């Protein structure tokens, strides 16, 4: 059992002073934004995730035709969701139809074919369907994140800043919303909202999802309110609003951003879960959860109908989670840079030189 062994005790103790020196030197003369940005870009997984998410968004948003009022921006993909091309019968395994034509040969040949993700029952291009679904899901994710983030910050800061009666009333409201089981009430609304559309559903889910954030912001405000810099601002004659938004909020922004990313990651899963149950986005509209739900039973015969939307859900959620993790590390003032082997070596050399 080497489980309880302590690692590199001796060098660790020696380096305690050196670590601080490294960490302090690093943030000398930089603004908060610069420090955060630097730390974020050092988090390799988070940067990769950011890159992947950005390219997915770009990819998904440009693939199909976009309509903003009267303006139409054509997409680069040849099929649309409405097209019903001929169903492919040739060279599919086990007598199935519409299998994917994407091919990656070991020799290096990479071919998309006519339907890279395959076709559904009636021959619609599955790539177009998945793109459309991913677009819906992304849109819902951002709407929920924005709505929940906005309400959470406003309620939390008012409650934490004014305290007393206002706080008591608002916190009861939070308790109240938390008691409502999200998935059930969302399902009730979703069932009715089938007529209203996914945007309404997203707004509604946002209206339910802000409670955790509000508590977090409130706790931060309660703590920061007592700080000396707030007293200083008050003595200097700043108004309440100015203190709240210019002095306290920037200090709490780290936790807020992290929390919002986590809300968004959760939101995409909630949306897909609801659609899967049949209460979220309903046909003829498309979302990733709905696609999985529709083709759940065909997994054994035509697994691609199941793999692709799932892959998109996981990738998007994974990216958002990693970005959140990177941001958390970047904003955490206690977080020091991990001491690498190279740093250790340098510090040892310095100590030796000092002796």
């Amino acid at each position, binding site marked *: *059992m*080497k*489980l*309880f*062994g*302590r*690692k590199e005790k001796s060098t660790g103790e020696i380096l305690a002073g050196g670590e601080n020196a490294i960490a302090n030197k690093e943030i000398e003369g930089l603004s908060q934004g610069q420090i955060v940005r630097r730390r974020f870009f050092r988090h390799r*997984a988070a940067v990769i995730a950011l890159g992947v998410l950005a390219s997915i968004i770009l990819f998904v948003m440009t693939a199909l035709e976009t309509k903003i009022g009267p303006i139409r921006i054509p997409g680069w993909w040849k099929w649309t969701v409405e097209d019903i091309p001929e169903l492919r019968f040739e060279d599919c395994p086990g007598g199935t139809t519409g299998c994917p034509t994407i091919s990656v040969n070991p020799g290096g040949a990479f071919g998309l074919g006519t339907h890279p993700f395959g076709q559904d029952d009636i021959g619609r291009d599955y790539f177009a369907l998945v793109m459309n679904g991913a677009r819906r899901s992304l849109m819902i994710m951002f709407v929920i994140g924005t709505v929940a983030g906005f309400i959470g910050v406003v309620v939390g800061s008012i409650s934490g800043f004014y305290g007393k009666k206002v706080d008591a009333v608002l916190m*009861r409201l939070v*308790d*109240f*919303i*938390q*008691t*409502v*089981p*999200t*998935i*059930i*009430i969302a*399902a*009730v*609304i979703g*069932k*009715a909202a089938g007529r209203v559309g996914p945007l309404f559903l997203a707004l509604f889910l946002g209206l339910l999802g802000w409670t955790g954030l509000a508590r977090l912001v409130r706790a931060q405000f309660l703590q920061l309110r007592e700080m000396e810099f707030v007293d200083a601002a008050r003595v200097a004659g700043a108004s309440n609003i100015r203190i709240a938004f210019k002095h306290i909020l920037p200090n709490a922004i780290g936790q807020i951003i992290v929390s919002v990313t986590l809300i968004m*990651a959760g939101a995409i*899963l909630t949306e*897909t*879960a609801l659609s*899967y*149950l*049949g*209460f979220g986005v309903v046909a003829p509209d498309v979302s990733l*959860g709905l696609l*999985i*739900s529709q083709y*759940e039973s065909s*997994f*054994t015969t035509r697994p691609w109908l*199941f793999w692709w939307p*799932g892959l998109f*859900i*996981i990738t998007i*959620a*994974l990216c958002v*989670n*990693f970005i959140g*993790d990177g941001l958390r590390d970047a904003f955490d003032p206690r977080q020091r840079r*991990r001491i690498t082997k190279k740093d250790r070596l340098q510090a040892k050399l310095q100590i030796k030189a000092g002796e």
Partner: protein
Amino acid sequence: MILFGSSFLVYNLAAYASDPLAELRLSNDDGARQAIITLTRDLNLDVPPPVRYFLWLKGVLGLFVGKLNLGMTREATSVQEELLYAIPVTLRLVLVATITALFIGLALGIISALRQYSRFDYGMTFLAFLLYSLPIFWVAVLLKEFMAIQFNNFLSEPNIPIKWMVIFSLFTGVFWSSLFGGERKRFWSVFAGAFATNFVILWAIDYTDWYLNPGLGPILIALISVGIAFGVTAISTGLGNSAAKKAALTMAGLSVAAYYPVQWIFNNFGSYLTILALIVVIVLTSMGVSRIFSKIDNGPITRTAILTGVITGFFIVLDRIMQSWAEYSSTDAVNGRPVPTYGQRKDQLVTEDFWINNLDIIMHLILPTFALILISLAGWIRYSRGALLEVLNQDYIRTARAKGLNERTVITRHAFRNMMLPLSSLFVGEFVGLVGGAVITERVFGWQGMGTLGIKAINGYDLNLLMGVNLLLSILVIFGNLLADLVYSALDPRIRLGK
């Protein structure tokens, strides 16, 4: 008060969002017209929703005078009865999943924190994020395909190909070596050891066709129990404590000696009561055993003995359940495909045998529990890792180390207990969350629990049923939060509510 408000809101939202008679109104049939009239009368549909809510509330408040009335469903059955049937099903599912996930997650999180920035730690962090991002229904379908259908196919022609043995052993090798490995040499020796052990075990399983007629038998039980005795002693008191070691080994020995008598008891009086009685016997015996060996400081030694006894006992029970496997899988209802993908019991399975019935329940639990565990494991790994790292940075840990306590005592006594504080309140929240989350699991695996009731209610515009489910979930949330606060204040001496 909050309960009142939230149920009022949900009731009215649901009442205005849905029209239970919509379908019936569309048809011109005489029967439909009749149905409208009966439904309107039974469900008081002629009363506007805000007022109708108070009619419903009156029934709920009847609880205090012993006449709880949650109203009727559309099919004119009582909501209470439906709920009473559904609650144990959901509880069984969620409780097993939460507790298992808690144990596995805690273990992984703690090791990951103790080995911060190691390969294992990075692996666990990535695993946690991956699990966070998995939609449960997606996982569930994959599990059905690969753990049930393919495994059942495999059982009909049981033969582990060498290729899979190698791949599987490679995985185990990587796991253990990243766990214990430090220097390169050590890494490879652990890797080789784990690889070889796993390979031999798999080969033995394949050679003896163990999965067709599994069981541990007295010899394996003896080996396992000695291993448990050493393991429990190492964690609980340290191997240096010879009294604890002797007590644990005696308990292991006694359990093995009791193997055959216990088999006879199990075969003739198989019931939950027997198992309970067995646990009591184990606890009493271990108290006696530890009395014999301990001179001073009886507590930790008793604890070690009890833990050893109970865990060994668990393996003996497991062995007994495994012995029913062959009989179970050859029944007509199972027909050689023992891993089910659907439902919570096999209705066709008619047997009086306690062990076979339990095996049936366990087999039906496996897939949904596995899916739920995968989902909630991520949280536990992250929480416990974070909590332990936080605690290890505290001054009292430094003090404990400074006064010369060994690392085991520092971790298990000082760090572990403090780390459990924030986790204890999370447990309740996680449990409540899973009850809500079980909606999807239940639907995928076809369980008739609370979630299925909820879906049925929403789809059928069945207001009373919906409110019943909703009420229960809300009560669970409120009591869960209350319980979390109470547990926290009981555990943490720093918190004193109301002076």
